[in-house]
């Protein structure tokens, strides 16, 4: 499965990238929303993981773009900080498929991605 991760914190981005690569996924990364949209447009992505707070273009805007322009069902997992419950509600109203609240464990992310991988494969 090809996964696009958008996250502005470098170590978190690389951690998620490494973890998901180890799980056997192909991963592309962006450290801001603008690049994430560009990468999404240029690649055939199966799953998007995006942080909500990001420079240039927010995670919600990425989510909106993916849901509007994908032309097929692409799951989006939203990463949010504690206390951003209202934003999570907004994300679901825009079509988010799942959310993970920071702080989270890389293993939790891995398991949630696995669930979507099974759905994509089916």
């Amino acid at each position: 499965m090809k996964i696009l991760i958008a996250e502005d914190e470098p170590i978190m981005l690389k951690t998620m990238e490494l973890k998901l690569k180890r799980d056997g996924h192909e991963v592309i990364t962006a450290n801001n929303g603008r690049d994430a949209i560009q990468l999404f447009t240029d690649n055939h992505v199966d799953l998007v993981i995006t942080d909500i707070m990001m420079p240039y273009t927010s995670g919600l805007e990425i989510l909106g773009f993916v849901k509007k322009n994908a032309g097929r069902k692409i799951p989006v997992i939203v990463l949010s900080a504690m206390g951003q419950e209202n934003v999570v509600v907004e994300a679901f109203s825009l079509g988010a498929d799942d959310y993970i609240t920071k702080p989270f464990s890389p293993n939790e992310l891995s398991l949630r991605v696995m669930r979507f991988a099974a759905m994509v494969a089916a």
Partner: protein
Amino acid sequence: MRLEYLHLAIIVFSFIALILVVSMLLIMLRKRAITRARKSIANQLEPWIMDIILENAPLDSENFPVPANISLLLERKLARKVLLRELVKVKRSLSGVSGENLEKLFSQLELQEISLHRTTSKRWHVKSKGIQELGTMNHQASYERILELTNNEDLMVRMEAQTAMVRLRGYKGLEFFNTLTYPLSEWHQVNILHLLAHQPVSEQVGILDWLNSTNPSVVQFALKLIAEQHAGEFYQQVLACLDSPYEIVRKEAILCLGQVPSMTTIAELTAHFNKEDNKNLRLCIIKEFAGNGSEEDIAFLKTLQQVEDVDIKLAASKSLLQLQ
């Protein structure tokens, strides 16, 4: 003569301007060099931190092995500060074993020394940063030091220390209520409630002491906590708060009763309505009738529609509408 003065003034002014420009340039260059050095250090540390997060680095007895190049790097004070900043930043996003590994590394390298030193700074923002680092990295050994700062004269330092206490020990961390002389702002009360949201309240956490605190904002917090967790077992104590001399406590008690209602709530509120002098609190009571009243209370609300005060009339009419 005047021309000579003018020349002299031009020379002095030019000299001062030159010094200013050179100083600014030097400061900018220094800042740029520090930023570059920080970035370079962070890049060198990154793979090692990731190994620890992803549990690649096996524990050598109790400690994580530190590669020779990193060990050498960490001899520099700046490198230790960069590592501390990176660990704290990542720890905010990670939990589970990965988060615990970062905490272990923090203690192993004694980075708490930097944070503890920061807590002794005279500048509030440096002090707050040190407290925040210790709280985020779950450094239990610094508990006593943070406790000392919970009653600090600076509001920001105080709030940071109080938040760190709750992060470190949950309800037990609220022991600072026993010595707190400053008020807790409503905003900060909500913050603390948010941190405790997943921990059920019980008598053991000290709530009865807080309800009898001499600091009205502590009582207010306890009432908010009871309301949020719908802890009906404290109903009698909440009722007792209606007799508090403090307006904020009485108001919170009225709101709290609305969240932990019993069969007698409305009767108690009606009795209190007649004793209460404060108009805002009377309005609060009337609003509670809308949510918790019954047909039996319609007569009382109708009598309030006859009073002279327009606000009371309006509130009574609104509650009546909701009841009917």
